[in-house]
Structures are given as C-alpha cells and as structure tokens.
C-alpha cells in the first residue's frame, strides 16, 4: 500500500497512460508467440499456414488425438519425461534438504569453498558437463538408459536443491531447534518435526523448479536417450529435423511441454525470484 501511494505520487494521467501502453506492448511481445503456438496446434494443417494470420477459427483436436493414438506413441515419451524428471527431483530434494540443512547450521572449516563448489556445479555449461558424462556412461553402458538420464539431471538439480534449501534453512532461527532439543528431541527429530515443516513452502517451490529444469531439458536427453527412453523435448526436435517438417505436431508437442510448467510456475510465483536468483534476492 505504501508503495502504491509512493508510486502514484506527482504523476499526471498522461504519464500513467504512457506506462500502460508500454506494459501492454511488452505483454503482447511476451505472450503472442505462446498464444500463437497453442492456436496453431488447434488448427487444421491447411489453416495453420494461411497468412494473414487468423485468430478466430473452429478449433480441432485432431493433431492431439493422432499423437496419442496407438500408432502415435506420444504417451510413451510423456511417460519417460515424467519418470526422469520426477525421479531426479525426488533424489535431489531428499539429499539437497539434508545437505542444505547441514550446510546452513554446521560450522565447516571450508564452508565457503564448499558452497562455491555447489554453485559452480550448478552453473557449469551444459555441453561441458555432457561430455565427460557421455564418455563415462559409454564405458558403463548407461547410454540410452533411464538411470543415465536421471543421473544426468541430478548433476544440476542436486546442487540447485542443496543451495536453495540452505538459504531457506538459514532464514529459520536455530533457537527453535535448540528449544526442541531441550525438551528431549534428538537433533534429527528437531530437524524433522520443527524446522522441516517451517521450510515446507520453500521445499515445494524447490521441487517444482527442479521438475521444471529436468522437464525442459533437451541437450542431455538428446545425447543420453535412445528410442525407448526418448523424452518429449527430443520427440519435438525430431518432428522438425526429419524431412518434411510436421509443424502441427511440433506446435502441439510444444504446447504439451509448456502448459504444465506455466501452471506450476504461476503456483510458485512467490518463490520464483528467490529460486531463479539462486537465493541472492529474496
């Protein structure tokens, strides 16, 4: 409320109108491609390509129906994507929460080096991470397996979860756990019954962001999967790299990739700045 009065102070109707025009133009630029993709996925093959663009038409779900039919095989890719992202998220959350708590509470001699190591693991360029993993996986026979893919996703989700959970735990005063321990809790019980429930919203947000990073990945999956373990983003890329680009299916696949993430993203909006700035902005 304070901000509202401060922002509104000393500015005429003209200034406000200009601001709204800028904001509307920005929103059109941001949303038009997404809207256009969803609309295109609901058009017939012929309707998709007609220019000037049509925004009003009779929608058809034929493309989706065809993709999910027995011969389309799309359900299988969807299952792979779900399994890979859920598993890597689960592993990262469990280990990241424990590690993050220890890092937030413990006094490690080289705590700073440790946290730097965590952040650099998360920030390393994907091609530079892919390469040694690929060589090691080929030796171990993990190329094309779900295990390999889950492992690959954990390379970026675990450091992320560990780091972000550490920042959440740092916000919770240790005095609460100490009080619990005075009342007879063990150190782990104090963490499990007192601190973890307080960090629950942060945990949910972290989990959703981990899911998103894995779900949205293309690079790792393009190298580490085979036909049997292909994920949705890889399927999308194959639709446009084969001869005769299948734009209808590509747009429908794109829609399926982004819709769950748009919904999840709005859901964790409050924690988004924090998650995406690696906890540096709260």
């Amino acid at each position, binding site marked *: 409320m304070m*901000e*509202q009065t401060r*922002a509104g*102070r*000393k500015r005429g109707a003209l200034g406000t109108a200009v601001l709204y025009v800028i904001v509307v133009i*920005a929103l059109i630029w*941001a949303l038009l*491609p*997404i809207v256009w*993709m969803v609309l295109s996925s609901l058009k017939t093959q012929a309707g998709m*390509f007609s220019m000037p*663009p049509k925004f009003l038409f009779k929608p058809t779900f034929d493309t989706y129906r065809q993709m999910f039919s027995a011969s389309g095989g799309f359900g299988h890719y969807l299952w792979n994507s779900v399994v890979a992202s859920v598993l890597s998220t689960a592993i990262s959350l469990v280990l*990241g929460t424990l*590690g993050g708590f*220890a890092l937030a509470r*413990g006094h490690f001699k080289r705590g*700073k080096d440790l*946290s*730097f190591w965590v*952040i650099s*693991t998360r*920030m*390393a*360029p*994907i091609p*530079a991470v892919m*390469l*040694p*993993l*690929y060589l090691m996986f*080929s030796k171990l026979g993990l190329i094309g397996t779900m295990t390999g893919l889950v*492992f690959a996703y*954990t390379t970026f989700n*675990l*450091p992320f979860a560990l780091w972000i959970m550490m920042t959440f735990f740092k916000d919770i005063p240790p005095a609460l756990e100490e009080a619990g321990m005075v009342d007879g809790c063990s150190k782990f019980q104090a963490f499990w019954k007192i601190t973890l429930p307080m960090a629950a919203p942060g945990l949910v947000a972290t989990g959703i962001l981990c899911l*998103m990073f894995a*779900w*949205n*990945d*293309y*690079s790792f999956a393009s190298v580490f999967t085979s036909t049997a373990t292909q994920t949705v*983003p890889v399927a*999308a*890329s194959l639709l*446009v790299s084969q001869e005769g680009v299948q*734009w209808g299916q*590509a*747009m429908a696949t*794109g829609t399926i990739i982004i819709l769950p*993430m748009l919904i*999840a*993203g709005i859901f964790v*909006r409050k924690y*988004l700045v924090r998650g*995406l*700035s*690696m906890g*540096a*902005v*709260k």
Partner: protein
Amino acid sequence: MLAPSVVILAIISIVPLFYMIYASLMNYTLNPDQPVFYQLHNWLSVLRDATYWHSWGRTVVFVVVGLAVELLLGTGLALAIYHIPKGRNLVATLWMLPLFVAPIVTGLLGRFLLNTTYGMYAWLLQCIGMNTDILGTTSTAMPAIILMDVWEWTPLITIIVLAGLQAMPEEPLEAADVDGASYWMKLRYVILPLVKRAIVVALLIRSMDILRYVDTILITTQGGPADSTKTVGYYLVQVAFQFQDFGRAAAIGLTMLVVTIFLGKSFIRIFARGEE
C-alpha cells in the same frame, strides 16, 4: 547429514571434472575405444584453432549484446510495472510466462514464426518490406538468436529488479521529494543505487546461464549459416558429438569452465555481501 549429498555431489562433479582433464590429454575417439596419451596436443590444437577463437568472439557478442538488451528492457519494464497504479501483480505474472518455456520450444517457435512461407513474424516483416530469410542469412541469424534469448530471459531481470524496487526503503525517496528532485534525478541518484545489487545479481546469473544453454541454437540454426551463430558452447557440442574428437572437446570444455568459475566466484562475493 551432509555426507550423502557430498558423496553424490563429488561423484557427479569431481569425477567428471577429472575425467575431462584426463580426456583432454588423450587422443580420444570411441572408435577404436582406446585413448592414447597425447601430451598437450589437444590443448595446442585448440589454442591454434581459428574457429575456436571466432566462436568465442561470437559468444562475447551474444553475451554482451544479449545482456545489454535484456538489462535495459528488463530494468525499464521493472520500473514501468513498479509505477503502474493497478494490476501490478497480474502484469508481472503474465510477463514472466516466457521464463517457463523450455528453451527448445523457444527455438521451435522462433523457427515457426520466422518461416518465410508461413511464419507470422516473417509475414509481418514482409508487410514492411523485409523479405529476407531471417534464420538463413548470416547477418540476421545471430540477431534472431539473441532476440529469442531476450524474449525468454528479459523477464528474469525484470522480476529480480522489481523485487529490489519493492524492497526499497521509503526514507531516501521522501528526502529526495523534500529536496524537490525531479524523477530522473531520483532514478539516477536514489533508485538505481538502491537496486544496484539486484541488477548485478541478475547480470551474473544471466551470464552464467547464457553460457550454459545451447538448446535454441541446436534446434534453429545449428551454428549456421556459414558459422554465423556458432558459439563456443555449440562448437563444443559439434567437436564432441559430430566430429567425435573427445580429447579436443574436453580441452574446449575446460576453458569454458574456467570462465564459469570466474563468474561463479563473483556471484559468491555478491551473495555473501547480501548475507551480512
């Protein structure tokens, strides 16, 4: 409690790192699968490779131009959203939606919208007399790739700076009002210094991420036309997975890591300052 994560983290980061250092010293292909010690041959050939340096040059252009545009637009829009009297939350939520779009889908959309025969953006450009095949022309492919990055990631700068603006203390602005400062003076001397840390954080995160992803280039131009969009990340993918010269690719990868580590160090410094 830290032990299991540290062990796993070591397996997923230190082991691959040492493996990459090892690979960079070997003549390493999968066929035959018997790497031979190669001394510093890979390193020397990378450092003498003109394509490598050119790909760094393009990466610098990509990063500098991309980040500059994102910073200006992102901060400008954060200020605009901050100052609108109503609907701030709704606008911020809608504006950040591209952040959730998988980079591969951004690339797909770019290709679809810029397709010369049925792309909507290509059609709009044709209406104003521009008939070039944007992604197929050397002079326009890189700007298009940069714009895709701008589309997807400018909202990140906006929400970080907006969070900084909303956390601003009242007093300095009130004092400036009492002194009769104009809006531009307030922006220059009060607002921007107060959100400086948020801006630096946003820039560091973005510069690490812009080096991190190659998805859009993989799906749109594949480094072309005529190498005009071949960034160092894409070059690494090409040397490794197309030419299968893993030793040389490992040397390229290690040089990229050095840059990331430098950026990460700066981030930790800024982060620690905020913790105090």
